[in-house]
């Protein structure tokens, strides 16, 4: 169970049971998003440090909102802030944050492995909000939740991931998570972004550079954002990518008629995805955003709720079966 989970560093290290437990725990928090009064006092008095060493809007807002709705306070450090610009090291920055006694820390960093590095050195739970090209575990969990809700179960689907797989932590976290559930995964994109070597990432995984082949029979299509800084002549021109790999209504028709389309955002309309698909009935994009809140609330509740580890509080021994 989750009892042994003290950090969330990636989906690769999560067990099948831990993933299912987290998805089940996200359920009540999904319902909570529909409440007229979206403010709990569950984590009142707790503080979450939100340390984003790389700029982000969506994930940062999602974690901050999740903490706020649970009643926790946040202290935010953003990429643009001065200490990072002044050359302070990662460990000095997080030790400074730790000295302000937060109960947990959410980290995004451009270097793969930064959250694990911090987790080894701090006493508080660390949640990975994206590290380099390594993992983005909360994104994979919210994707899994969206798949389970829309398609009734998580197991045994054909999932196609389109785009720059090589540099994508979203793809990696999804591959590690989904491969624990018997998913057949197809990776597709230009050869320089989808090298054959990726086939070793997980069982039941194949690579193709032809989008028609990738989409045929797909139950779920995950479209990755094309990082515009990686699009440049002569390596790859934008119109070449559009011609070869944009998810258009015509191409989506090659997938199963009820195929679900996911995108981690932010969407670059007209580049990796056509607006008609992004806004169409098969798109789960906005559910992904709401589910992200639910998943992050469930994680914060289980990881930073409870007695602080350095000051064990005698648990009340008032265990009536009914109270």
């Amino acid at each position, binding site marked *: 169970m*989750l*009892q042994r989970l003290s950090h969330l560093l990636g989906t690769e290290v999560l067990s099948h049971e831990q993933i299912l437990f987290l998805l089940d*725990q996200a*359920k*009540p*928090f999904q*319902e909570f998003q529909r*409440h*007229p*009064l979206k*403010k*709990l*006092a*569950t984590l009142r*008095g*707790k503080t979450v440090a939100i340390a984003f060493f790389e700029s982000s809007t969506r994930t940062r807002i999602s974690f901050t909102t999740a903490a706020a709705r649970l009643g926790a306070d946040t202290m935010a450090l953003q990429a643009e802030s001065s200490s990072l610009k002044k050359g302070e090291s990662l460990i000095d920055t997080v030790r400074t944050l730790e000295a302000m006694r937060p109960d947990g820390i959410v980290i995004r960093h451009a270097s793969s492995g930064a959250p694990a590095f911090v987790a080894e050195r701090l006493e508080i739970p660390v949640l990975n909000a994206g590290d380099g090209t390594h993992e983005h575990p909360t994104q994979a969990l919210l994707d899994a939740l969206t798949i389970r809700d829309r398609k009734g179960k998580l197991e045994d689907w054909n999932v196609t991931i389109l785009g720059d797989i090589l540099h994508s932590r979203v793809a990696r976290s999804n591959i590690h998570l989904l491969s624990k559930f018997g998913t057949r995964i197809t990776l597709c994109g230009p050869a320089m972004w989808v090298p054959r070597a990726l086939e070793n990432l997980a069982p039941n995984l194949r690579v193709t550079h032809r989008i028609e082949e990738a989409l045929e029979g797909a139950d779920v299509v995950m479209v990755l954002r094309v990082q515009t800084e990686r699009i440049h002549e002569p390596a790859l021109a934008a119109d070449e990518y559009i011609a070869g790999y944009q998810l258009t209504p015509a191409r989506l028709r090659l997938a199963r008629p009820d195929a679900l389309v996911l995108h981690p955002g932010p969407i670059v309309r007209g580049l990796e995805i056509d607006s008609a698909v992004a806004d169409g009935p098969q798109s789960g994009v906005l559910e992904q955003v709401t589910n992200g809140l639910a998943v992050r609330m*469930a994680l914060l*509740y*289980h990881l930073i*709720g*409870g*007695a602080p580890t350095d000051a*064990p*509080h*005698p*648990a*009340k021994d*008032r265990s*009536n*079966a*009914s*109270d």
Partner: protein
Amino acid sequence: MRVVEKRQLLSAEEIDRTLQRLAHEIVEKSGGANDLALIGVRRRGVPLSERLAKQIRGFAHVASPVGTLDITLYRDDLSTIDHQPVVQSTQIDFPVDDRDLVIVDDVLYTGRTIRAAMNGLFDLGRPRRIRLCVLIDRGHRELPVEASFVGRSVQTTDTEIVEVRLQEIDGEERVMLVDRVE
């Protein structure tokens, strides 16, 4: 620590008769059942609330809505326990605004569960009235909470536990008083 059974407080038949009486009391003291809604507190308040609603439907011919409330996120001891308890869903699919709510639970003890339940309900709206119906009131209150409808009041000591077993959850039907012995 062992747990020994001291005596049976209610048999299956007595539970059934008690619930019939409680259902009648609820309707009588509400001036009809039209605005009533029952809120079962997880876990054993849930089947009890469903049974009460069925009784009310039987004699008053009103289908009172029934909701399920999980109080985990509203507990006041979360910051003192090591592992966070599992959160379950709250299913109240009707507006609680201006409703005449009756919270249903199996045992009333410290009152803390009911405080948590009321907080949970206020997050959903502004009920016109909230009352409480319990199968057993065992005393030892730590908060100013009392039930409007009580199946049976029982004198207990601090170490005793009232165990309610219901068919829907436990596969058997009775209420026992058990004691913890070292």
